[in-house]
């Protein structure tokens, strides 16, 4: 499909696309390659976020930690949270969206391949932008939800002149706006892809569960990101132009920021977890040799989670004193989310119940994701009780909750996906022995790191403290947590070793190593550029199983075909150019407070963007 405004110049003939080399990656519009780019980039960011976490853990190992300064510590957890969420889990999910949505729905590519490339480049440059802050010594340090008015520049309007605010928060504000553009563009793309490019016969209620959950995620992204965009704009104005959106001295209200942030922020947590739910729903049936239990219930519970997810945001604000009616409303609404989530958990158990379970690494990761997510979910329900949350909020009990859902849920789910789909993406099976070692260490390390946080939180350890005194007896569990974190780091080193080892080995993966149920297993590993020589005809939600059954239990290895006559989109270099334009335009806003003539760079960036978009629009798409 073309994005161009005009196609009159598009010659309808196949082009010879360069297949290798740096240029081919820079100009690629192939969803599979973009997926790999997303994955590689996000994994590096994840390691960076992990490294930040390790420093946090080292600092907190014992009482009165002196490893880093308090301000550095604030920057570390801010960037750790921001990195993990916006540069780690979201783009790791985007890797799977990119690679597997088209494959699972039987499409040749996403709806707008060049827009897809654009999303990636914007994400990459935005991620670099926000991390450059470390190099210039001004890393964001206002926490990952950047509460105003700490993040507004006029903090103390007293007689003593407040020091000129640094660029720390500006990096964060602008970086998130850049990343938001990437997310919205990608979400629009996948949304349209799922609605419109499903293979013949694939009705909505025949879509693989991963595609369904991804679909819900795209809707959430489209609806939630505009809200934080507005909030960030306000914050930027407060910082740079003296407005008072969140400043009480001008009549504004810092709580406004909290509402706008969490109206985005709560749907965001489902944006983070639903892809992992989808992945688990793919893996559990395949390795249980049973279809997903309660397909329809799974679909509707996912939709319901997304829907209700928009009505619970103030559970992050119970301590702000919203009054009894708001507290009641948001408490009850939050509790309701346990129901559809429970439906998911029970249906997963129903799926493995009576099955014939093969314990591959992917399967173990997926099962662990179910087991660990339950723990995080249940602590979530404990927070949802507003008065109880008055003790829990801003303590390590919360930190425990969200690492159980984010690490136990999202990261385990995504890692499961990596093991499951690795052979499809790279034509090589990851080593199962190393995989199991990775799994057990990760499982152990995860619980050692995050379980004690429950105990510490309930026993009075607040979060975001750069050190704690001796007398409170926090040291023992903190020590265990630090050890756990290094076990986790070690498990990821094993994963890296596994990747490298497999990389150097031969391409040994068959098209369908696991006896999968969905369309991506019907084509060679890795797939050819056009994915499907002929669009598949789909008759159920498990087309590959249907085919296998029809073939008497054994399917021949699909042959490579020439792809003659299949028009694939042209590579293009304008998405990258446009992404640079976006970064120039927004990035230059960093300096408007200090040096007004940087407006020049902003205008230059806008012009650059403008030209790139026109070039893009008028370039032949096929």
């Amino acid at each position, binding site marked *: *499909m*073309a*994005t161009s*405004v*005009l*196609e*009159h110049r598009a010659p309808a003939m196949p082009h010879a696309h360069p297949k290798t080399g740096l240029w081919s990656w820079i100009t690629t519009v192939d969803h599979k390659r973009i997926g790999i780019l997303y994955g590689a980039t996000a994994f590096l960011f994840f390691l960076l976020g992990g490294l930040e976490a390790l420093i946090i853990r080292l600092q907190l190992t014992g009482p009165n930690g002196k490893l880093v300064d308090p301000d550095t510590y604030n920057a570390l957890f801010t960037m750790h949270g921001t990195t993990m969420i916006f540069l780690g889990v979201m783009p790791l999910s985007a890797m799977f969206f990119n690679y597997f949505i088209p494959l699972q729905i039987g499409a*040749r590519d996403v*709806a*707008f391949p060049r827009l897809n490339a654009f999303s990636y480049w914007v994400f990459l440059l935005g991620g670099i932008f926000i991390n450059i802050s470390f190099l210039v010594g001004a890393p964001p340090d206002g926490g990952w939800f950047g509460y105003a008015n700490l993040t507004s520049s006029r903090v103390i309007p007293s007689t003593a002149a407040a020091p000129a605010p640094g660029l720390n928060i500006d990096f964060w504000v602008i970086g998130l706006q850049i990343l938001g553009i990437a997310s*919205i563009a990608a*979400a*629009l*793309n996948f*949304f*349209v892809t799922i*609605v*419109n*490019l*499903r*293979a*013949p016969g*694939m009705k909505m209620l025949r879509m693989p569960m991963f595609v369904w959950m991804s679909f819900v995620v795209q809707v959430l992204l*489209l*609806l*939630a*990101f*505009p*809200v934080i*965009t*507005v*909030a960030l*704009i*306000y914050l930027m*104005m407060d910082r740079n*132009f*003296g*407005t*008072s*959106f969140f400043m009480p001295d*001008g*009549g*504004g*209200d810092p709580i*406004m920021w909290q509402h*706008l942030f969490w*109206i985005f922020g709560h749907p965001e947590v489902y944006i983070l977890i639903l892809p992992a739910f989808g992945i688990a729903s793919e893996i559990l049936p395949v390795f249980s040799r049973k279809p997903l239990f309660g397909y329809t219930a799974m679909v509707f519970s996912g939709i319901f989670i997304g829907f209700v997810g928009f009505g619970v945001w103030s559970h992050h604000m119970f301590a702000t004193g919203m009054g009894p009616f708001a507290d009641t409303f948001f408490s009850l609404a939050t509790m309701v989310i346990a129901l559809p989530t429970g439906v998911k958990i029970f249906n997963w158990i129903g799926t493995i119940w009576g099955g014939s379970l093969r314990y591959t690494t992917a399967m173990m990761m997926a099962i662990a994701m179910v087991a660990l997510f339950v723990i995080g979910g249940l602590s979530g329900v404990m927070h949802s009780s507003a008065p109880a949350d008055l003790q829990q909020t801003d303590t390590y009990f919360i930190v425990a909750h969200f690492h159980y859902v984010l690490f136990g849920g999202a990261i385990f789910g995504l890692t499961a996906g990596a093991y499951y789909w690795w052979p499809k993406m790279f034509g090589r099976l990851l080593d199962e022995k190393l995989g199991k070692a990775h799994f057990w260490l990760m499982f152990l390390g995860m619980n050692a790191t995050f379980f004690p946080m429950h105990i510490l939180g309930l026993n009075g350890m607040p979060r975001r403290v750069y050190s704690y005194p001796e007398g409170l007896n926090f040291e023992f569990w903190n020590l265990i947590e630090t050890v756990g974190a290094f076990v986790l780091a070690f498990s990821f080193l094993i994963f890296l070793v596994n990747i490298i080892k497999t990389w150097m080995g031969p391409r040994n993966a068959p098209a369908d190593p696991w006896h999968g149920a969905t369309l991506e297993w019907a084509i060679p590993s890795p797939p050819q550029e056009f994915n499907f020589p*002929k*669009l598949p005809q789909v008759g159920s939600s498990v087309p590959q199983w249907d085919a296998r059954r029809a073939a008497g239990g054994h399917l021949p290895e699909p042959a490579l075909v020439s792809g003659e006559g*299949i*028009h694939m989109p042209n590579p293009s270099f304008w998405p990258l150019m446009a992404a640079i334009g976006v970064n120039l335009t927004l990035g230059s806003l960093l300096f408007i407070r200090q040096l007004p003539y940087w407006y020049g760079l902003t205008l230059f960036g806008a012009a650059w963007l403008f030209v790139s978009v026109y070039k893009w629009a008028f370039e032949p798409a096929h």
Partner: protein
Amino acid sequence: MAQAATASAGHGEIDEHHWTSTGLDTRKLAIWGFIGSECLFFASLIATYLVYRGKSLVGPLPHTESQCMMHGKMQACEAIFEIPLVTFGTAVLLFSSLFVVLALYGAQKGDRKMLITWLSATVLCGLFFVGMQVYEFYHFFHKGLGYSTNLFSSTFYTLTGFHGSHVTLGVIWLSTMLVLALRGKLPPEKALNLELAALYWHFVDVVWIVIFPVVYLMR
């Protein structure tokens, strides 16, 4: 594109390159999805305006006289809004919505004259509206309403400013279409290109339909 599917339809066989599961055009779907997303963008801006209504600490205020700081001293300031001018701008924007459907009609029917006439009219209306807003902002500014003067000014300028920038983008987009039309590159098969721009334009218009009463008319 969907229109090219004609060749193979009805034979039980699909044209793989133009297949869409819903039969709807992919780009049109995208623009609608984008519009849906934009609803939340404007909703956030409007909600902030509403929440902060009446909470400004100093003048000038939209509908009433107030005390405000001007030329370095506190003094009485008149109400900011001038309803007749915006009403006129609103009407112009509404008309432009009408004009662009007429232009689209012309494009679809291959009526080049109709297309060019109405499309030019649309662009002119859009330009007029942007001009009206620039004039309005300038005027307000000289009545003492800077961007950071009070909560009203900040929320008002941000909301209407973002609407205005959407109008500006729409004008650029429609002008591009106009140039294409003038060069004869907007034949009926390509009318969809104009339809997308028109949808965006209508959206910007309906946002104003909400902003106008909520911001200008509600006291």
